[in-house]
């Protein structure tokens, strides 16, 4: 469970017809995969830096070798087997490797960092930075994901069935460029600064987001089916944001353009009654960001 995730269950009465089905996000890989199972052994005190949990670093290793991979905990390193029961051998390549974490990994950070292929299934929640900089393959989180999920990812699919924390698909602190490619699907809600500095790719949120979704966005698509609090698209220069619910406090630097019946971004098309705005003109006069809000949910705009 992400500490303090705002779960706003208030249903939005949007007349959005096209709903992206989660199934459309699942990969259609036909490669035979070898499965490695990680079962948590004990409560984890200081959070683990477990960027070794990727199909790429597991590939070609047997369960014992995988158990010997080093994870950082505070100032020390330990073998992965200190914290997880490892069973099964990995495939000969990342693409042929499936990692299944059977249990909760809320205190395990950086799972799937930089992975290029293969699959990780986490049958509980994932700690911070899950799927950070992932390039390909797929991660499924059955529970919640802590902050920085999919930070600066460039490809692949990150599927979170629960809620997500802050900074989903975002740029690292101080950086301008976040997610560049790939897709993130969140079946629950997400918190602040979703898609910050995003350059490309797609983020879909079935639930709601809090503040500053799409801050400094330069490209790509953010689609939030539910509501947003405030600061949507602040300082955005490009890309597309679609909000299916109500925006509590609309950003002041956007200008109304027209009413639209559909939104197209890449291969995705959404059908509905939208008010289209462009911006954010608060700083730059040349901004090319597009912000669509469902008309019915936002009558005052």
């Amino acid at each position: 469970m992400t500490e303090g995730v705002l779960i706003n269950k208030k249903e939005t009465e949007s007349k959005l017809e096209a709903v992206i089905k989660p199934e459309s996000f699942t990969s259609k890989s036909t490669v035979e995969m070898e499965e490695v199972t990680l079962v948590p052994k004990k409560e984890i005190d200081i959070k683990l830096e477990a960027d070794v949990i990727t199909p790429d670093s597991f590939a070609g290793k047997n369960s014992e070798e995988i158990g010997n991979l080093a994870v950082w905990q505070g100032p020390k390193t330990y073998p992965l087997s200190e914290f997880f029961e490892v069973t099964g051998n990995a495939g000969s390549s990342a693409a042929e490797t499936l990692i299944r974490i059977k249990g909760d990994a809320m205190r395990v950070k950086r799972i799937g960092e930089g992975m290029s292929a293969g699959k990780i299934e986490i049958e509980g929640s994932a700690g911070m930075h899950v799927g950070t900089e992932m390039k390909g393959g797929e991660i499924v989180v059955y529970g919640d994901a802590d902050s920085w999920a999919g930070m600066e990812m460039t490809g692949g699919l990150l599927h979170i069935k629960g809620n997500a924390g802050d900074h989903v698909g975002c740029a690292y602190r101080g950086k301008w460029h976040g997610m560049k490619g790939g897709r993130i699907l969140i079946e629950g809600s997400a918190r602040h600064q979703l898609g910050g500095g995003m350059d490309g790719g797609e983020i879909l949120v079935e639930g709601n987001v809090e503040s500053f979704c799409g801050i400094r966005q330069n490209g790509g698509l953010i689609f939030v089916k539910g509501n947003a609090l405030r600061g949507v698209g602040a300082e955005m220069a490009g890309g597309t944001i679609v909000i299916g619910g109500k925006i509590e406090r609309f950003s002041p630097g956007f200008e109304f353009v027209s009413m639209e019946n559909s939104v197209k971004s890449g291969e995705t098309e959404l059908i509905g009654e939208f008010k289209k705005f462009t911006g954010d003109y608060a700083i730059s006069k040349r901004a090319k960001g597009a912000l669509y809000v469902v008309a019915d949910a936002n009558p005052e705009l």
Partner: protein
Amino acid sequence: MAGTITIKNGYVFDPLNEINGEIMDVFIKDGKVVRELSAAELKNAKVIDASGMTVMPGGVDSHSHVAGAKVNAGRAMRPEDHYKANLQKTSLTHSGSGYTVPSVYKQGYDYSTMGYTTVFEAAIPPLEARHTHEEMHATPLLDMGGYLVLGNNFFMMHYLREGDMEKAAAYVAWMMKTHKAYGIKCVNPAGVENWSWGKNVSSLDEANIHFEITPREIIKGLTEINEHLGMPMPVHLHANNLGHPGCYAITKDSLKISDGVKTRQDMDVEWAETKIDPSRNRSVYLSHLMFNGFAGTTWADCESGVKYVADYINNKDHVVTDSGCTPFGEATVMTGDGPAIHDLYTLTGNKWSNTDVEMECGSGVLPFTYYKSNPVHSLQWAMGLECLLLINDPWKTIMTTDSPNGGPFTKYPEIMTWLMSEAFRKQTFSECHKWANDRSTLGGINRELSLYDLAILTRANPAKTIGMAHRKGSLGVGADGDVTVYNINPQQLDANNYETLLRTFRKAEYTVKGGEVVAVKGEIVSLPEKRTYYSEVHVEDEREKEMLTDVKEWFRYYTLGFANYPTPEKYLQNPTPIQVNVVR
């Protein structure tokens, strides 16, 4: 015995002694180069077999931003510069992080593994001297010092306006010893003061607000004082109008101001033996020529104006310059030239830090990325190399990136290789924007620097220029036992094989400091103590007293008390004052 070592059979390049690749042994005893070691000493001495390798004096960087408030502002405002570049602690070394603005430990280790042993901070605002010394104190493995920013200092401008050169000189002398600084830095003279009012100056004869003094008067005055006091180094000038299309003209005109000024370097030091006269013969040391070398009128029609400045420098003998090369990639621009950084902010929209340093100066910091796809950035790359290749006499040039302005010092291996290999330049031309070729002369230059030239640009000349050749930049008897051994066999050197050159310059085979091996193939192996140099400049007590009466009177405008202004010696590691202008 610590600090005693023999480096055997290497190809030695020691330009101050006109040694050009001769196979010879270098002997160091108790940290200093000696003619030979006795049989007993040889028995206990450590020996490095440098057969088939290149041996040079330890690298000297005479212009780098490595310590102080603006460097730290760069660190603080750039977490993204640190999260991927990090260094694990070992039993010997400290952890660290940062790519363009590394933490002090990492920066010491990174310089050292590249073969550098001496680095001078390019700009110390007097008020930030304590902070600067604290960081220099904590930077391992490098002998250091720094230049005091005086070109927009209220006291300085006031005295120069009044024409009171005696007091002005006494003020400079007092400031050097008060802040433990080494030389005079002059940044955008008169302009930075105008920046306090949101303005700048655009010509050498434009008087600034309130003080009504012109850049020309400041440059002339500081140069006069510098030579009057017999400072170790020339006035280090960051010319006006920096980074603007067409700025080469004002740069050239600024250099003319010190033409004909008689140089006087009056240091009471023991000089290491050298064949070439190691004393200073330049009256101006221009910083980062590349940034001051744009021709054209706008960014649309800009082109390289380096050739015009280079022509001037080729025809005169009073100028030495460092290049300020831009090797592409990430950088953090930081300078005392606040308005120049503001211009970059309006150009890029990047995050930006700006500081007004009370009655002294200012500064600005901004992250910057040089892209091969960008026409101006590509041109800048070409211009940086032009600075070092169009000026014929290597004793007039110094290789820098104005780190981290043009790029971090860790990119020096790239610069060295571009200078040595036309093939590598051609390779880069093929990857970057055509402006690099179309709007500069670099494409037509087939000059390839030798290892001897490179030793001048990275060792001998920086040391000679800043007055450190009495102990740095050579392997003459009496010099500090600072040595770099590169795994390059000059007999088999193939400039077309630039990948190998890059690799070898990145990690020196051995870095020796004060006769102790400190780095081997990229690994730090020992951490001997370091030194900090500053100029203890002497003037008549009476002059100093008169001047201090004024300073104390005006000091009420500062936000700190007079007693807290000086930097005590305890802030320095092995403080090493250089006695200047001693009455004999």
